[in-house]
Structure formats: C-alpha cells, structure tokens
C-alpha cells in the first residue's frame, strides 16, 4: 500500500484525507464554535479546595473580543506583533489567548515557572511587545523587562472571573495567609481594566474584522518555544492553518469518541504547552466541550475535587500523571465513572501504566506522538480501532510518516530509522533560525530526531532519541527499552539508562534505579533484565538513587544521570558484569 499500511487501520468514519478545513484562521474557527454553543459552559476552573468559576462560550467570545480590541486600540499593536502570555491554567488564559488571535497578533506561550533569565531569552528572542503575566510571578519583571521590547504588561489574577465572594477569599488568602502575592513594581494594567477599556472601545465602534484583514491561513498564529535538544530554546512558528489543521486532524481521528457538545475534559496539563493547547483548548472548544482547568496538578491530590465535582469524560495527560493518579487512593477507590477515554502524549506511556489505567477506569487510553514543531500531533492510536500499547499509533489523517536512514532513504518496515513526517501541521520553521529550520524541515519533511520502527500494520514505535542510543559492541541499545523493562519490575519506581565507556565493548549499559522496595538488590534487577532482554542490553552496573534528575518536562535527564550524588547513593556491580553481548 505505497508504504502507508496504516490507511487500512482507520476506524469507521475516519477519512484518511481531511476535506477542506472548517476555517482558515483560528478566530474564524473559535467564532463558529462560540456561536454554536453560546450558552454552554466552555471553561470551569477548579481549585484544589473545590472553589471554582466558569465561563460560557458566549462570555469567552465577548471577553476575548474585548481583549483583542484592547491590544489593537489601546496598546496600539499591529497584526503580527507578538504577545507573550505567561499564565497557568485559569479562566483568563482562553480569554487572553483567543484575544491575541482575534487581534491578528502572535501568541508566545511562556511557562510561568520560568526564571528571569529564561523569560528574558524568550521575550527578547520573540520580540514580544506586550506581556500578560500571572500576578504571582510579576516580581521577576524588573530584572526582565529592560532587555526586552515589552512595553505593556497586563496582570492576571488566579481567581479572575470567579464569583465575587470566592474571588475575594482567594485573594485575601494569597495576600495575607500564604503571602504569595508580590508587590508589582513595574507599570501594569490588571486584566479586568484592560477588558473594560477594550469593551468601551468596542462599543464605540472598533472594527474587529479589520484586525484580520491581512491574516490568512499562512499567517503566524503562535511562536511555541521548544527546548529542542541543542539547549537553545527556539520558537516554532505555527501558522493559523497549522493549528486549525491539527485540531481538525485530531477530531477526525477521535471520531465519535468526542461527541459535540457533550464532553467534559479535565485539563491538568498546562495550556502553555502545545499538547494541552491544541488537544484540550482548541479541539474541545471546537466541539463545544467543557474544559475543567486545574491550575496545578502537583500534588496529584489537587485533582480530587475536580474529579468529584465534575463529570469528567476525557482526560489528557502524560505517563507521569496517569501513574501518579494510579497511586492515589481516592482515585483508585472511586475512579471517574463518566470517563470515556484518555489520551497520553508528551513522553512514552509505559505499557504497565496503560494496562492498569484500563483496569482501574474501565476505559481506553491511547498514546499519541508529536512535537511542538508539528502543532503537535502526528500519530495516535485509533480509538475504535486496534490499539497497540507501546506504539505511538498510526499517522493521523493527512499525515505521512516514514522511518528513514541517515541518507534520507526510507528503511524497510520493522527496521529502525529516524522518524520524519509531512502534513499540514508541520511548522513554518524556527523563528529567526534559518539554519536550524533547514536542517529540521527538509523538502517539507519534519525530521524529528527520534528513532522509530513501523510494524506491518503501519503502527510506529519510538525506539529512542537518536542521540541517546548506546552502542554495545556494534549493537544498538535503546535506553527506553531497558528503562521500560526495569520499571516494569515490581518494587521499582523508575529507572534511567545511559551508555558508559567500556574498554571491551566500546560502550556498556548502566542503569540508575529508584526503588519502592528497599529489599530489591542489583542482582535481582539484573536477573529480571536477563529474562526479558538480549544479553547485550542487560545493564552491567546498577546504581540506586533516591530520585532521578528530571527536566521541567518531567522527562528523565539522561545526561545528568552520570553526575554522582553524595549521600544515599549506593552502587553495585551486577553478576552479569563479565558477559559478552549476544
């Protein structure tokens, strides 16, 4: 089937090629939905203690219009100007993000946890002229603003759009009890005032349509920064069409599992990240879903009230989140009864976690795959089709995926090669990084840097990152496989695997393990690995750690694993230390 065996795997009703997109730009897409579902609740923000506020589609539409007018008329921005948004999951987020799109401006999503230097880099690199920031972290601004082009600062409160009394209580608690509200010394406008000004201008005749006169599908919608692998954070240029297309592709893929106007999705992942941004925010807004926004899922007990108080039908998450929920007693004793399906991405979903999730909730969980550079979704396991654990599924409609060798030629099915992808969701390039762009997007193919294999049915399996591969006597060992094997062992919480120099084999495998069961020995782990892995993949050395270094993304930082830690670490040389690769 011309190298696309997955075409036969699409579930009933999923078209392999998208028909015409429902809208050219995001504002068009959002307005359609706002009109269709005007009276439905679009967003509910749920605090850990159950305090909450909600916005209807009509409110979101009106308030984001106000914000668009504010940006254009009051701040004086033009189409294409960048607006940085540094806000956690809260009701203000969709208003601000949609307002930026409606103003014809470019959204620069920024992690609220960023340090001053990370903020400075991102704001300066994007050339943002305005910043919307959560008041909790606005004390970092004096150190940041002078080296950026930001002239306007809008502040957002976590309790904005809550019922008045509740908002007052939250505000008082932040100010006088937890004392988390810093004094903001830079000039700023509270979002409330900004919206009021925008509204006033709108009522006196601002022309919202004019803002989008020059904005078409190719226009830049968002600069989504990605750490990438080289260290320097770069802005992936996502156009309106990229995001509209990916939204449509996702909905085409999920088919009848996402019912228009009937879903309640729990958004525990941050919206500033492209995964939740496209999947939760855009896709579920498009179909009239209700987004339950949780400002922070840490600790996971923060999600208890959201699960108790709302009929959650969909959940998106990363392996860490699903695993964490499966360790919470309240979740295990009363798994969400209305849940229909869960989608995992961001990092590999462990087979054991997927299996337990299905057992506990009685609902499917499917893993997908994508990059910031692809808006983000490229592949997904088909709900309503064959779900293969341990794979990232099949390419979503209108997407081509291949595994290629270093020379760029496709490898035969079943052989590992770099995963490359083509489709309407692939970014326009890296903002002001033409060299990196040329290297990453070649002839329309996005080179992901991930090594994958395709099975005969067209399902892809990520083997590892290209750069993390360990070569033992000429055999390729992918740390993910070894980590997964060790992590599946009872009593092991997690494992990280790296290659270390070895006089005999060039490199050998070393594992760093965090255990729940202190009785577990290195010999036990090696014996377990021997049972499941080819000999050359079995770690030579097991080192026990109290915890593993993780990135902001929650991924294990393999490069930091080799750094020895002081107290608490014990190392052991396994009995397999003399064996040769098979």
């Amino acid at each position, binding site marked *: 089937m011309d190298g696309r065996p997955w075409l036969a795997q699409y579930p009933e009703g999923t078209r392999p090629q998208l028909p015409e997109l429902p809208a050219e730009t995001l504002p068009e897409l959002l307005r359609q939905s706002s009109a269709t579902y005007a009276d439905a609740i679009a967003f509910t923000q*749920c*605090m850990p*203690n*159950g*305090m*909450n506020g909600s916005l209807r589609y009509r409110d979101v539409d009106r308030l984001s219009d106000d914000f668009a007018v504010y940006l254009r008329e009051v701040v004086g921005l033009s189409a294409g100007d960048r607006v940085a948004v540094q806000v956690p999951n809260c009701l203000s987020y969709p208003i601000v993000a949609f307002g930026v799109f409606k103003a014809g401006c470019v959204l620069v999503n920024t992690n609220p*946890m960023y340090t001053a230097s990370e903020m400075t880099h991102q704001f300066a690199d994007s050339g943002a002229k305005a910043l919307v920031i959560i008041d909790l972290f606005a004390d970092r601004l004096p150190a940041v603003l002078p080296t950026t082009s930001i002239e306007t600062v809008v502040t957002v409160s976590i309790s904005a759009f*809550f*019922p008045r*009394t*509740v908002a007052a*209580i939250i505000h008082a608690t932040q100010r006088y009890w937890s004392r988390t509200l810093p004094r903001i010394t830079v000039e700023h406008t509270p979002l409330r005032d900004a919206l009021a000004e925008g509204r006033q201008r709108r009522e006196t005749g601002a022309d919202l349509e004019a803002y989008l006169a020059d904005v078409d599908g190719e226009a830049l919608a968002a600069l989504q920064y990605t750490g990438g692998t080289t260290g320097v954070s770069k802005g992936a240029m996502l156009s309106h069409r990229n995001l509209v297309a990916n939204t449509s592709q996702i909905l085409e893929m999920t088919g009848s599992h996402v019912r228009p106007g009937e879903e309640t999705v729990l958004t*525990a*992942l*941050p919206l500033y*990240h492209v*995964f*939740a941004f496209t999947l939760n925010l855009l896709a579920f807004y498009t179909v009239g879903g209700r987004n339950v926004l949780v400002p922070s*899922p*840490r*600790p*996971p*007990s923060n999600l208890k*009230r959201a699960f*108790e*108080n709302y009929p959650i039908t969909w959940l998106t*998450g*990363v392996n*860490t*989140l699903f695993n*964490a929920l499966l*360790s*919470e*007693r*309240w979740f295990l*004793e*009363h798994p969400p009864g209305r849940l229909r399906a869960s989608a995992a991405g*961001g990092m590999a979903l462990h087979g054991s976690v997927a299996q337990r999730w299905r057992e506990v909730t009685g609902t499917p969980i499917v893993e997908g795959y994508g990059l910031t550079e692809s808006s983000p979704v490229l592949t997904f396991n088909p709900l309503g089709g064959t779900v293969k654990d341990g794979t990232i599924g099949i390419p979503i409609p209108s997407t081509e995926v291949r595994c290629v060798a270093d020379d760029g030629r496709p490898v035969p099915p079943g052989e590992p090669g770099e995963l490359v992808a083509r489709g309407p969701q692939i970014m326009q390039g890296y903002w002001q990084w033409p060299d990196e762009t040329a290297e990453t997007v070649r002839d329309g193919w996005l080179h992901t840097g991930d090594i994958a294999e395709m099975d005969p049915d067209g399902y892809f399996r990520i083997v590892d990152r290209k750069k993390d591969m360990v070569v033992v006597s000429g055999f390729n060992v992918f740390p993910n496989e070894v980590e997964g094997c060790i992590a599946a062992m009872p009593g092991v919480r997690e494992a990280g695997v790296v290659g270390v120099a070895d006089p005999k084999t060039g490199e050998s495998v070393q594992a760093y393990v965090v255990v729940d069961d202190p009785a577990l020995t290195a010999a036990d782990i090696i014996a377990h690995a021997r049972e499941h892995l080819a000999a050359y993949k079995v770690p030579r050395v097991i080192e026990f750690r109290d915890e593993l270094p*993780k*990135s*902001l*993304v*929650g991924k294990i930082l393999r490069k930091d694993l080799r750094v020895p830690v002081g107290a608490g670490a014990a190392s052991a040389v396994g009995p397999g230390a003399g064996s040769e690769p098979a």
Partner: protein
Amino acid sequence: MTLSGLVPLTLAVQGPPPDHEVVTDFEQVVLVALVFVIMFGLGAGLTPRDFLSALRRPWGLVIGFVTQFGIMPFLAFLLVLGLVLQLPPEFAAPVALGTLLMGSVPAGTTSNIFTFFSKGNLALSVLMTTNSTLWALLMTPLALYLYGTRFMPEGSELQIPLINIVVTLVTLLVPVAVGMVIRRYSPNVGAVLELMGGFFGLFFIVFLMATWVPRNWVLLAVTPWQVYAVAIFLGLFGISIAYAIARSIKLHPVNARTVGLETGIQNGPLAIAIVLLTFSDSPLLGSLLLVPALYSLFIVIVATFVTVHFRRANLSEEQRIPSLL
C-alpha cells in the same frame, strides 16, 4: 513518695471547692455551638464517596473499636497502677476512678477537628466517633466494671447521661450531613464553609485552652505530679499506641493517624457529665473530676503537637511528581 508540701496536698485531696465548675454553662453552650459550626464546615468538605470508602475498608472501624474500648481502659488501668496508687489512699481511689472513666469513654468531637487539621480521614473519623459513642452505652460501664469496681464508692451505680450521647451525635452528624448536601449543590459555598470550619476549629482550640486555664489554675497549682502525668500520658500514649497498632496491621498512614487521634482523644465533657450525674452527692466529687478536667486541657495541647507532627508526615507522603510538560 514525696509530695510537694502539705498545704497543696490537703487542697488536692479535698479537690476543688463544691461550687467549682469545670466549664460554665455559658462556655458549654458556646462550645456546643462552635462544634456545630465547625462540623458543618468540615462536612462541606466530604462526599458520600468518602464514607463509602471508609465503610468499604472497615478495618479502620474495627481496629478503632478495639483500641477505643480495649486499649484505652487498659492503658488507664496501667496508669492507675503505676502512678495514681502512689498517692494517699483516700485521694487515690477517686482519682483512679476518674482516670478509668476517662479511659473508658468514647471519642469526642474534638477528635474530628484534630483529624481534619492532621489531614486524616475525616469520614472515617466521623464514623468512628459515631460508632464508639453508640457502643459507649454498653462498653463504658463494662470497662469500668472490669477495672474499677474496687474504687467505686459503696452503693453508687454508674449512670451514662443519654442526653450527652444524643448531643454528641447530633452536633456531629446533623451539621456534617447538611454540609455535605450544601457542597453537593454548590462546591463554592462548600469550600467557603470548609475554610470557615477550619478557622473556627482553630478558634475552638484556643478557646478551650483560654477558658480552661483561668477557671482551673488552682488545680494546676496543687495537683500532684502523678495526676499531671496521668492526664498527659493517657492522651499521648493512647494516640501513639493506637497509631502504632494501626500501622502495624498496614493501615494506610492517613487512616492510622485517624485511628490514633480518635482513640487518644476522649469525650472529656461526657466523662465530666457522667461523674456529675453519678456522684453528684459524693464528698469526693472534686477528686473524681480531677483527671477528667486536667485531661480536657492537656489533650488539646498534646493533640496540637501531634497534629503538627502528623501534618509534616502527611506533607512528606504527598506524591512528588515533576512538573508535567
């Protein structure tokens, strides 16, 4: 055996003056009202699921029953043997009886408040208090019969004031139920009530100490150290032993903390009411009240320290996950 001077000893043996009240009627009303308001707020944080979970694993309830009516009276008996019997016999008997009674009464509502602050299992706590309060009608006299017969004055018969049992249950269950219903219909109002419940809970603890001390300071000044020790250890050991037992049978730490607090924190007002009802004419009334009154003060202090400790433990047990994405 040495006691600190003759005058205090005489005072202590006589106990407080006959018109002495451990708490005034006004304070009593305030306390009941406070408990009502607090439980209303704490109830607003509960769902039927929480109770289902607690019932689905009845081990907490079972072990709570055992520690409540098995361990606590026995602990009180040991304290009597080890400490109270060192005192002059005429003084020792009523104090011993007060101690045994304190060990044999059920858990009080205060335990629910401390369970809340300790991040324990509030639903389990409410069920345990209800359970032990009902069982008290049978078990409290039984325990006293078992350990205390020889200290009982001739011809007196233990009387459990039903009204106190009813008040305890009503001030516990009614507000919790109403709170749950409100929260069901408005999570926002529920959350605000819960916050207020916590606030009043803190006030309640301070109020208990602040009203107790000025009224009873004479007691503090003249009480022999053995009685102090009994009043403190009964609560402290009760909480610790019950917690250790619950942990040893692999109860979840949250539930073990709940069992500990439920067991160690007794219904002080009920014990006092039983004394007043049963021995109102006795010349030994003051001495009988000594341990229940002192216990009521020190349990608040002990439980506060335990709560601080439990909260820390709870915090360190929270799952730490990296920031996601």
